[in-house]
């Protein structure tokens, strides 16, 4: 059974908004990162469903690429989280305002 393209898009949009809300509202760096991951996954979902809809393989290829990039990004981001913790013993994002103008 084919899931209709519209459903998939709606679900992806809902997921994206959820991720964005998480990024904007949560104050912990880790939670912001999780929100970013959710938004990325929403994007991946759009790629996959579009690929299935138009019967083109490009979208799936792109998702695999995206997974790899996400993995790398998470590795860097978590390393930075550890570093930030060491610096200020806190992970509240607003505490880090060293770039203030």
């Amino acid at each position, binding site marked *: 059974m084919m899931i209709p393209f519209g459903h998939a898009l709606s679900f992806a949009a809902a997921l994206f908004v959820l991720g964005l809300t998480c990024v904007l509202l949560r104050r912990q760096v880790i939670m912001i990162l999780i929100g970013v991951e959710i938004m990325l996954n929403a994007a991946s979902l759009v790629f996959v469903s579009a690929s299935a809809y138009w019967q083109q393989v490009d979208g799936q290829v792109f998702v695999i690429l995206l997974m790899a990039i996400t993995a790398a990004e998470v590795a860097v981001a978590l390393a930075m989280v550890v570093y930030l913790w060491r610096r200020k013993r806190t992970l509240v994002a607003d505490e880090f305002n060293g770039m*203030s103008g």
Partner: protein
Amino acid sequence: MSESLLFLIPLLPLCCAVINMLFGMRLPRLFAEIMAVTGVAGAFLLTILFWGYAEGEGTRVVIFTWLNSGAVDVSFAMNFDRLAAPMTLMVTGVATLIHLYAVGYMHEENDYARFFGLLNLFVFAMLAIILADNLLVLFLGWEGVGLCSYGLIGFWYRKLENAKAGTKAFLVTRVGDVFLAIALLWLFAATGTLNISEINAQAASISPGVVIVLSLLLLLGACGKSAQLPLMTWLADAMAGPTPVSALIHAATMVTAGVYLLCRLFPLVSISTVGMTAITAIGALTALYAATCAMAQREIKRVLAYSTMSQVGYMFMAVGAGTVTGAMFHLLTHAFFKAVLFMAAGCVIHLAGDENDIYKMGGMARRGPVELFWVFLAGAVCLAGLPLTGGFFSKDGILLALFTHPDPTYRVFWLIGVLTALLTAFYTFRLVYLVFAGEWRGTGHPHAIPLQMRWPLWPLALLGLIGGMLNLPALVGGDEMLHHWYGDLAGRAVTASHSTEWMLIGFAVAIVALGWFAAHWRYRNYRPPVENRVSRFLLNGWQSDALVDCLLVRPFTAMARFCSSGCDRSLFDGTLEGLAKMATRYSALLVQLATGRATTYLSAFAWGFLVLLGWFLLKLVNGGGH
């Protein structure tokens, strides 16, 4: 001696100058002094040895090529000809004696290497002017003597006024040099060459209007170096330098370089009647101006400085009257007697305990060595033009040339010349009476006068007295040696009937006698100086400094002040600073956006995203409408 060795004449002083400047302080003092003197004395001896090469068309020696590009072909070349040879002999000869004198004069001075280095360098630069084959080398020497003059006037630079006098001399003569440089470039444009003899040969083919402008430019250039009106203000102040410098540079040699330049380019200058009249007029006015100033001066060296100016004015008159012989004759005799006057004045100042004011001297004839009075008197009678002295014959020749000039306006210049002669006799004897007659009025303790300062005076005094032999007029049985030596370079031959000549001579004698009697009557018995408006006016050189200050310095300062505070500081700086302040104020608003918190930026992203989304939606709605 081979003619290719001619270059040794200027090279010897140059080498000594370089050695003295580089290593002088490490050499034993005696060695440095002996080297300085022998360098110049060597040049003098070489000039005598090479004398034969000057005869006929002279000898041209190319040392090396300096510039060679297209039409410009300038080489370091020397032209040892009939005009250059007597001048070279005079400069090296007088310089040798003055160097010797300087050894004595400066013997308490610690900075001897700088002094003798500059003095030797000056002799080199002066020889470059005299021997230059082309105008560019001449210009090089011209600037060189200016530089040395600057360095030597301000020799005791720790006193601010000396340094200022040096700067003043440098700047005022530079004004003349600019005109000379313009004349040089113009000559090159007009004739395509800088070679002096080629320019003289082509002079007739230059258009008459250009020749007038060129001779006026050359005249202005000569005025700067020779302290003629209107560029004369520096010479009196230049007396701040050591006395040997005043004797060598500001009396005998450098100030006459302008006369020499005009004589060198005489075939060109003499073409334009306007130029010749201008030269005579400048000379006449300067002669009279300086003579009036000299009457009121109080410092012994300033009297002599103004008299130099006045005598150089006579030389200009001679050039303007068309007689190169007359100009060079007076140049040579003047060099002798003025050098001796300056050197004797240096001795007098020594004896008076560094006192310059002639009103605080007096009785010097008995106070110092007796020969000092006699050599000073020898120089003074030459300057005053007492009959049978060198100065008498040379000055008389010039006055005769002015009197017999075909143009009747020259009679006016002759009259000015005669009046100047009267004033000259007056101020010269005033000087003699005030310094040597009567009782000692000063307070200073005399310094001893070393031997080197005494005996160089004798040959010069003798040369000044018998200098008339150089060009004794036929009237008194002379053979006009200098005139025949110059031959075709001599300019107009001055011819007059015997009765005219006798009349003029009688007149000149009467003038000198009148001047002497006036001075005798006024200054035989000392009377304190009268201070009034006229004497102050003359003392300050007709307020020429104030005039220059009013006409040039103050307007220039005002303009500079307007440019700096009016334009630069108010207008430009104000506008730019206003703009900068505005930018700073508005940037403060923008700074508030940069909180440095990641969350702020993230929400900004989100808002941007929302705007984009809204925009797309709007397009979608509009697109649907179509």
